[in-house]
């Protein structure tokens, strides 16, 4: 449950993601899809309801604490750190870095250097996997829209996530890179990572999602396989702006 003043943004909406599962969250504009992702990621605090991860209540935790527990989100408009290199974007995301503590950075240079090399090896492997290895030392600001989305996914992977929330991964991305993203999401799900994705590109939803949930005006409207929900009369009506209602 989440209200902004008098506007009820979410009411009874719920979303469950199991390990290795890709859940699509669809619905017309203004349905509250991104808001639900924000509540799950800890960027918005709901007035009612719970966020659970592995059965533990994390509703009161901030976004950073949730990320450290393995719940990471990406953004609708890619938010790369443009003045950091691609590699630095990934290194930044590595969890539990001792070198981020002032004293360790100053007094344990060897330890920090070893940690950096280990993180770099993992970051470069991820960059190879998402096809950005050649861009490692470029500033992230210079990437294309699609590459920035891949970078966000790569950054999330550095955190060794359990659940990744993707907000419109295909928006503004060239078709070949959308295919690349779809392949990666399926591959990573097979490795046990759970995904929730908000998406308007129905071809992509059909291609990658195991289950689909439909949200309209902050309420759950329908759930099931892609074929089931798209055959649902209420879903069609919601997308057409309730003209048939």
């Amino acid at each position, binding site marked *: 449950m989440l209200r902004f003043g008098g506007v009820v943004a979410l009411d009874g909406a719920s979303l469950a993601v199991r390990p290795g599962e890709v859940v699509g969250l669809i619905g017309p504009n203004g349905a509250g899809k991104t808001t639900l992702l924000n509540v799950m*990621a800890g*960027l918005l605090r709901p007035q009612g309801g719970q966020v659970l991860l592995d059965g533990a209540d994390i509703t009161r935790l*901030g*976004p*950073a*604490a949730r*990320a*450290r527990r393995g719940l*990471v*989100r990406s*953004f609708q408009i890619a*938010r790369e*750190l*443009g*003045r*950091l*290199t691609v*590699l*630095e974007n990934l*290194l*930044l*995301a590595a*969890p539990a*870095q*001792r*070198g*981020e*503590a*002032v004293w360790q*950075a*100053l007094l344990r*240079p*060897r330890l*920090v*250097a*070893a*940690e*950096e*090399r*280990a993180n*770099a*090896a993992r970051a*470069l492997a991820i960059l190879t996997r998402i096809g950005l290895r050649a861009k*490692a*030392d470029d500033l992230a600001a210079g990437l294309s829209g699609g590459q920035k989305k891949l970078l966000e996914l790569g*950054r999330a992977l550095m*955190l060794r996530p359990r659940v990744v929330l993707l907000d419109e991964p295909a928006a503004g991305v060239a078709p070949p890179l959308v295919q690349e993203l779809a392949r990666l999401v399926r591959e990573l799900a097979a490795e046990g990572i759970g995904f929730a994705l908000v998406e308007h590109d129905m071809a992509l939803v059909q291609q990658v999602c195991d289950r689909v949930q439909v949200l309209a005006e902050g309420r759950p409207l329908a759930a099931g396989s892609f074929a089931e929900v798209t055959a649902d009369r209420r879903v069609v009506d919601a997308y057409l702006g309730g003209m048939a209602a």
Partner: protein
Amino acid sequence: MIAYLITIATLVALASLVGLGLNLQWGLAGLANFGIAGFYAVGAYTVALSPVPGVPALGLAMLACLGLGALLALLTARLEAEYLAIITIGFAEVVRLVSLNEGWLTNGALGLADVPSPVGFLPAGWQPLGFLGFALGMLLASFAVLEVLARSPFGRALRAVRDDDVVAATLGKDVGGLRVRAFALGGAVIGLAGGLHAQFLSYIDPSQFTSIVTAYAFMAVIAGGRGSNLGLILGAGSIFLLLESTRFLKDVIPLLDGTRLAALRLMLVGAGIVLLLILRPDGLMAEPRRLSRQLSPLKEP
């Protein structure tokens, strides 16, 4: 002439220290500190009032400013970074009022005299050079520490917080904690510079700690390139070079009197910065980046 050059070099060293502190706070962490003059004054008064002279007094000055920096940053830890900037303006004003009015502590407008020099043991003729060496030593040590931090994962996390604090938080970074640390450490370096200022002049009063101290520090960081410590020292050096070299304009241009010259000098510094930013919009030097070849797992450190 030699004495003049030594004095200028010492002042450049002090300005560089202030700039290094600001470069950590604003250059790397994105926290604008408009209260630099306040931190500088606290450092200077701490040394002047310190029961012990020399290096321990400077340590006290750093501790005082470290604590004040942490306090200011903690007050605004849950707010946007802009609120910290507003608070620093108030902080500098409070420091100015206290130094001017709390006579029992600061001797008010009359100021505090006879601050002992850390190089007082040298023969009088060698003291200026000795102090320059001492100040350069402090500058070098601070530079080394700050450069290690800037290139460390700590520095990288600060740059991330500066560029997009929401992203930093969604990647698991403790945004508030990083800001408090950066602001407190930067404050300590500015406090060190203020302490050296008191030891250098041996006399301080409130008129020495006006907002021009803050302005010069920002100029040095902007000219040097936000985030680059080496660039910052070049920036501080260039600004003093401009400020001081224009002093001799009146020998070349006969029409200038003292007042005109003073106004013209500031205009020239402003024009210099504008010109620099047109030619090199990111300042003299770029902030350090971690390249993949520096992190090859095969290479020993």
